[in-house]
């Protein structure tokens, strides 16, 4: 028994150290963001003599970073709403409605899921340009309107529901929409929370596609904005303390989200694929 206790302690010590090591790049980012221009270039100085909170002040008041943050927040929320609606309806239809070609439709979606998103970029770019949606929020939001991952996640949750509850409601004359909003959705709340969080994070972070279809700083999401801040804000590599502060401002909301709702995300990933 005693050796078990020691073993558990050792386990926690090891995992604690490993977690700190994994967090090292984040810690280094925060530490560097509080340094002066000279300190950040001096490798012998690990910590700033005096934390330069002014770096954050200048990022928040005198840089385009808050604007990028707002863009990411807005686009991510809009995309999440659209994806929630489309995926919910589709997953419900494909799980509970009987119609011809249902399995066929499901197979098409399954294959779509396996295709790398990049395979759609050239024609999607053409399409958005044809409808004058390049470099607009509408283009960014509409082109992310459906999430195949979301359809699968919700469908999986829907198939786990006991059929009795829905059948009883249908017998009582409830329409499909009522069944969906009053029975199916409340009973699959965990899947919804996981999906909402993952979709939000995915869109907030997204880089490749948004950077292909948007150009102006007024429409940039955080990833593209940060890159611009790195390469344009002064010559390459000069303002490292400010760049780190900008990175921290972008990263902190997500770390807060992880701290508050982490178990929804971790449980969703751990149990979703098994």
């Amino acid at each position, binding site marked *: 028994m005693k050796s078990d206790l020691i*073993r558990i302690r050792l*386990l*926690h010590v090891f*995992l604690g150290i*490993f*977690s700190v090591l*994994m967090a090292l*790049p*984040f810690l280094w*980012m925060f530490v560097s963001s509080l340094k002066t221009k000279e300190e950040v*270039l*001096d*490798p012998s100085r690990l910590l700033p003599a005096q934390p330069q909170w002014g770096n954050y002040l200048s990022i928040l008041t005198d840089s385009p970073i808050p604007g990028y943050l707002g863009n990411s927040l807005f686009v991510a929320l809009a995309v999440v709403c659209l994806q929630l609606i489309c995926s919910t*309806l*589709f997953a*419900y*239809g494909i799980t509970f*409605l009987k119609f011809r070609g249902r399995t066929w*439709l499901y197979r098409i979606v399954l294959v*779509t899921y*396996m*295709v*790398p998103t*990049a*395979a*759609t*970029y*050239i*024609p*999607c770019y*053409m399409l958005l340009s044809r409808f004058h949606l390049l470099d607009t929020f509408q283009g960014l939001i*509409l*082109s992310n*309107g*459906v999430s195949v991952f979301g359809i699968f996640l919700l469908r999986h949750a829907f198939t786990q529901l006991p059929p009795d509850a829905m059948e009883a409601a249908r017998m009582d004359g409830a329409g499909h929409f009522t069944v969906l909003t009053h029975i199916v959705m409340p009973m699959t709340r965990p899947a919804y929370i996981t999906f909402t969080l993952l979709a939000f994070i995915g869109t*907030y*972070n997204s880089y*490749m596609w948004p950077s292909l279809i948007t150009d102006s700083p007024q429409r940039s999401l*955080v*990833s593209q904005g*940060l*890159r611009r801040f790195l390469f344009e804000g002064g010559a390459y590599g000069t303002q*490292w303390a400010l*760049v*780190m502060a900008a*990175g921290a401002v*972008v*990263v902190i909301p*997500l*770390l807060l*989200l*992880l*701290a508050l709702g*982490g*178990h929804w995300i*971790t449980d969703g*990933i*751990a149990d979703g*694929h*098994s």
Partner: protein
Amino acid sequence: MTTKTIKHPLSAWHFLEVLLFIGPAAMFLIVFWILPILGSLGVSFTDWDFMSDGFQITGIQNYRSLLRDKNFLSAMEHTLLFACYTVLPGCGIGLILAVLVHAAGRHTPYAACLLAPWITPTVAVSIVWIWIFEPDRGLANGLLQWLGLRGLPWLQSSSTALAAVSIVTVWKNLGYVMLLFLGPLSQIPKEYYEAAALDGAGVLQRFRKITLPLLAPSTCFVGLIMTVESLRAYDQIQILTQGGPAGSTRTLLYLYYQLGFEQFRMGQAAAAVVILTIIGLFLAWVQNRVKGVFYEI
């Protein structure tokens, strides 16, 4: 068939209902997924260059010239190497971490802590890594020198850049891989371990004789998921190296980006992404087969 639908109002209503549920997502799927995928396939058989209006159908010319192109072959090689460098260490360390986190308790803060790199924007953390990899002033070489070792050029030499990008990728994915193992791990009945412990099996022996064999299907599965994931790596490459130095970190996806969106050789770019898609679909097919082999009987 149609007359029947019209005769029964219930049937027409049913059709409308199906349309209402399936329609919105189906529309987006068709417009932004299915037609574009077919479009890419179509473009890959043309010499379209984006600037000019017209194009000619050139058949499999794009594929032929890609297969003879030195850049394409080296991109294939880098894609394969990148997959090996990221999937093998990622799955190995991820599995061990999953076992440890499982032993410590699934709802300890470690799981969320390890997931932080995966949750945060790749661009933001890659920028930090540029600074860490800085040869003269970076943390990485600082640590190496502190240990009495010689510093490395990291991102600035073609012999180390792909490894450096892989380190960032493994670091980023580790928490995710750990979670993918954690699910199946918590489904192994506790009794197995208790029985083995009563028979005097040590920790390592229990890991080798119980955990590993029972997780073999999941390991295969996670490995394939992460291989597909490695095909999609773009953000970190774009920030850390832009495919350089000397094309040493140019993967197939990055080559596609350069061909299509830097050089506007849309035909060749489309051919490259079609090849990427075929590799992805092949891996998915293998994944399905593996699942069948392990679970169906």
